């Protein structure tokens, strides 16, 4: 029985091979997209899942009125451990705060992130050196580990896993360190590093003002997290009060609370941060699913359209003694075969597209893995699409009444037309939403590219450097003036400055007070020529100038937003107080978008002197465009003399490239949306093509009769197109409000955005109508051109 059904199925598919190919091809493309999305989804949602403690690990975050952060004071770790028995263990980690060069003779390694972890944190976070995790003890204060690749760079001939001596910093720095072995950094984890610096204890000498660490807790099973969260907040306030070095008022303390963020949240939606990655992932999954649904609709629609052909078969089989369930099964088998072939094709397609996908999302996914989740996901997807695509046609077809069918003049076209048309409209709705979305994303990105960001990052070179140029002096920092003098001697360098933060990165936050109103605002520690180098516009007052002695003592420049935040009238000459200094405001600059277009410009203060400031290490140079190469070559040659601490390790980046990274995510989104929109439209049109072919085939006799009765070709084109035309129009009308709401929501994620344009709505209508008319007319042409006599001869 099964064999016979299979044979019939194959004969049927072969007879309609054009339609079958379109169906299966469309589904394969959609499935390939879906497979990629599924793989990506699985990957993104399983960061750190290999950690055996995955379900019980939490990071302790602090919530201030203005922001949330995972940086917290180290001593609090001990306090938690001592107070709450439900906490099994507490670990501390600290990210490397600057780039470190590591040397072995001529071999140099640049590291961006040497992660400092204490023994407990290593255990909690499953950080395992190759030769096993051991607690540093006795003489050994730290155990250092580097990644295998890094070790290979430093010791190309090394075969064993024995400890090695390396130099830190420039070769004249004289610092040597023992590397205890190698460690594999798990890329599929929130904690990626170039190396690990393992200590028995961390931050022993820190106080509650030094929020440099992250605390990770491993809870005992079944702990009430919400409850513990409250208790830890109480403890934190108590500890702050007890060690109140920054003299916070009770009201201020009350405004501070702590939270526990599970490890599973950290990658996509950390409480201290934003959940954009999570939303993007969800959006992507929805896109993938919709594409699949559209392809399944093609199936359903064509199956129902073919119903008239299959009706006789159903009727006859029923009077020969077939149960309805047997017929349902038969039709499902037919659809399953097609879905199965589509799945195979989809795997091949996905494999071909995967390199581009990996490149776009910066991941390393691969299909052919034994432990891949695809092994159980694929059969599930296959069954699911078979059901989605097949259950309705199978039910409809198997439900035909033999009496009606066998009477002869049976017609299904009326019966299910509302469903068929409904599905078609639904498909077009999705396509229209995608087209509108695509057009609007495009306009916003174009706006972002063309808009003035308030500063000029082109031809600005950012040099990474280890020397501190802080004022007041901190850990042996030096004056930047002699460095600038040497730099400006190099032909082509127009200006040079140094700052604690660069545009595109995160600024520091601290509390400042104007006229008794206190607020946490951004701060940047700069040097002379900072604003000139970045071409930032002055609104009133002046920039920092060498000639004013007070500028290195207590002058400050603030931006427009800061003026607004404190609502200062006539800001120039007024006082802003922070970190124990009464700063005099000497200038106000126009806001410039350091954080791109998504977040609003933060109120910011710029000072040269700042006792509470951050490391002032980021050197910025403005270089003439046509002398760029020469200037960079000269810099590289002279760097050991200009900046002995960095010595021969001259490294730089172009600021515009760094700043451009802020837009990368949006551009990624655009690429995905572009692909998704094209795919949906393509698949929907494929479906329409097959559907129109089917419908016109069914109407060939009618068309022939009409032609004999004197209808012109144009009239017949109109006749065939009209119903499709109306459906596309309806689809547009339905989709407009949906697209309007969705794109408005998306635009609202930008602090700086375009007004919602009307053009995309009109364009989507034109595009879909045009595509429909062309597709349908191609089919109609055959019917119109056919000789009516041929069509009527067969009965």
């Amino acid at each position, binding site marked *: 029985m099964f064999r*016979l059904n299979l044979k019939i199925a194959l004969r*049927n598919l072969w007879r309609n091979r054009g339609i079958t190919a379109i169906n299966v091809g469309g589904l394969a493309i959609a499935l390939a997209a879906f497979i990629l999305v599924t793989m990506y989804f699985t990957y993104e949602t399983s960061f750190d899942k290999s950690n055996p403690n995955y379900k019980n690990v939490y990071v302790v975050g602090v919530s201030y009125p203005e922001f949330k952060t995972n940086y917290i004071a180290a001593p609090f770790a001990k306090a938690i451990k001592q107070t709450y028995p439900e906490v099994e263990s507490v670990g501390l980690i600290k990210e490397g705060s600057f780039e470190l060069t590591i040397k072995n003779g001529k071999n140099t390694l640049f590291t961006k992130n040497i992660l400092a972890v204490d023994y407990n944190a290593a255990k909690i976070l499953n950080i395992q050196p190759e030769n096993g995790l051991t607690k540093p003890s006795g003489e050994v204060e730290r155990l250092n580990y580097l990644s295998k690749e890094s070790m290979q760079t430093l010791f190309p001939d090394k075969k064993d896993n024995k400890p090695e001596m390396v130099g830190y910093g420039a070769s004249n720095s004289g610092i040597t360190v023992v590397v205890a072995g190698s460690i594999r950094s798990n890329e599929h984890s929130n904690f990626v590093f170039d190396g690990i610096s393992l200590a028995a204890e961390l931050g022993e000498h820190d106080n509650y003002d030094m929020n440099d660490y992250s605390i990770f807790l491993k809870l005992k099973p079944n702990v009430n997290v919400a409850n513990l969260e409250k208790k830890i907040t109480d403890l934190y306030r108590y500890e702050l009060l007890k060690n109140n070095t920054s003299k916070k008022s009770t009201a201020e303390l009350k405004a501070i609370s702590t939270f526990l963020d599970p490890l599973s949240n950290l990658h996509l939606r950390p409480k201290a941060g934003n959940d954009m990655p999570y939303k993007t992932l969800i959006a992507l999954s929805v896109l993938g699913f919709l594409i699949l649904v559209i392809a399944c609709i093609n199936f359903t629609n064509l199956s129902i359209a073919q119903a008239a052909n299959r009706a006789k078969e159903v*009727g006859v*089989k029923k*009077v020969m003694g077939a149960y309805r369930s047997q017929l349902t099964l038969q039709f499902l088998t037919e659809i399953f075969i097609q879905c199965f072939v589509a799945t195979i094709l989809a795997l091949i397609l996905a494999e071909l597209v995967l390199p581009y996908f990996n490149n776009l999302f910066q991941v390393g996914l691969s299909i052919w893995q034994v432990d891949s989740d695809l092994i159980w996901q694929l059969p599930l997807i296959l069954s699911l699409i078979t059901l989605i695509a097949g259950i309705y046609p199978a039910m409809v077809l198997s439900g035909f009444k033999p009496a009606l069918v066998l009477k*002869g003049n049976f017609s299904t076209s009326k019966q299910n037309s509302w469903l068929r048309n409904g599905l078609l409209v639904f498909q077009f709705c999705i396509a229209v939403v995608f087209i509108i979305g695509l057009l609007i994303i495009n306009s916003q990105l174009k706006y972002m590219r063309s808009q003035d960001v308030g500063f000029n990052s082109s031809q600005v070179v950012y040099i990474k450097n280890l020397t501190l140029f802080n004022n007041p002096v901190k850990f042996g920092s030096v004056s930047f003036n002699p460095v600038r003098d040497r730099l400006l001697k190099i032909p082509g360098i127009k200006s040079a400055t140094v700052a604690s933060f660069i545009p595109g990165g995160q600024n520091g936050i601290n509390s400042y007070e104007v006229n008794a109103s206190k607020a946490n605002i951004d701060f940047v520690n700069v040097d002379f020529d900072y604003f000139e180098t970045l071409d930032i516009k002055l609104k009133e007052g002046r920039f920092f100038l060498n000639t004013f002695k007070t500028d290195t003592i207590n002058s400050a420049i603030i931006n427009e937003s800061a003026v607004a935040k404190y609502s200062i009238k006539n800001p120039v000459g007024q006082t802003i107080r922070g970190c124990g200094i009464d700063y005099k405001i000497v200038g106000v600059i126009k806001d410039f978008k350091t954080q791109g277009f998504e977040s609003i410009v933060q109120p910011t203060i710029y000072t040269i002197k700042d006792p509470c400031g951050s490391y002032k290490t980021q050197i910025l140079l403005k270089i003439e465009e046509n002398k760029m190469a020469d200037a960079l070559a000269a810099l590289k040659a002279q760097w050991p003399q200009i900046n002995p601490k960095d010595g021969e390790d001259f490294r730089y980046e172009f600021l515009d490239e760094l700043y451009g990274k802020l837009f990368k995510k949006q551009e990624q989104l655009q690429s995905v949306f572009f692909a998704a929109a094209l795919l949906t439209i393509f698949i929907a049109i494929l479906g329409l093509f097959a559907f129109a072919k089917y419908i016109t085939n069914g109407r060939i006799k009618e068309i022939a009769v009409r032609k004999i009765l004197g209808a012109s070709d144009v009239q017949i084109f109109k006749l065939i197109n009209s119903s499709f035309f109306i459906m596309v129009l309806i689809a547009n009308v339905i989709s407009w409000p949906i697209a309007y709401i969705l794109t408005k929501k998306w635009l609202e994620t930008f602090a700086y955005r375009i007004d919602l344009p009307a053009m995309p709505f009109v364009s989507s209508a034109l595009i879909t109508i045009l595509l429909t008319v062309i597709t349908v007319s191609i089919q109609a042409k055959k019917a119109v051109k056919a000789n009516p006599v041929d069509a009527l001869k067969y009965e």
Partner: protein
Amino acid sequence: MIQLNNIEKYYANKGVKSYILRHVTTTIKQGEFVSIMGPSGAGKSTLLNIIGMLEEPTYGTYEFLGEDVTTLNERKRIELYRNHIGFVFQAYHLIDEMTVYENIEAPLLYKKIGSSERASRIADLLDRFNIVAKKDLFPNQLSGGQQQLVGIARALAAQPSIILADEPTGNLQSAQADEIMNLFKKLNQEDGITIIQVTHSEKNATYGNRILHIADGVVKDDVKVIV
């Protein structure tokens, strides 16, 4: 074997009942060969469909093999199709995607008959109807008469006790029609299969042994055919 009691059938259209059949009461015994005749639109097909349980009467009772089948669930009805009833259609209604062989085999598959038994029955039928050479052809490769032969072979494959045929020769030329009618006569006389056919042709009706004349939904005449 068939007992119809006061069968009525009407379609209600905008509150107006239009009767297709009225007060049809008749008995058909095992081994009879009945022809239903009457003008177009008289209700012949409707009556045959009711006998074949493809349609339900709006009123009246119908007993098949002593069992009331007026309202029968689908599963039971299909059991009757599998074991007792064979249909032959004016438009043949062969399944286009199946070869001659497979068309004849289909009902046997539903009846779950073993493969060797199946093969011998089909071989037997092909042989008897002289279509062995055509067994691997598809219906559209056969003439009308040949298609109808296959249709009858298919109806006979499950060894039914009754064959219902709605104008089985309506699409055929008279020579072919005679061949089919002779076949029916033979099946009736040699195998004892009950046959009920709808026909317009007086000549075809004479192959049977009883004629039901229907006009406007009413049985006007019930006559024995005297040979």
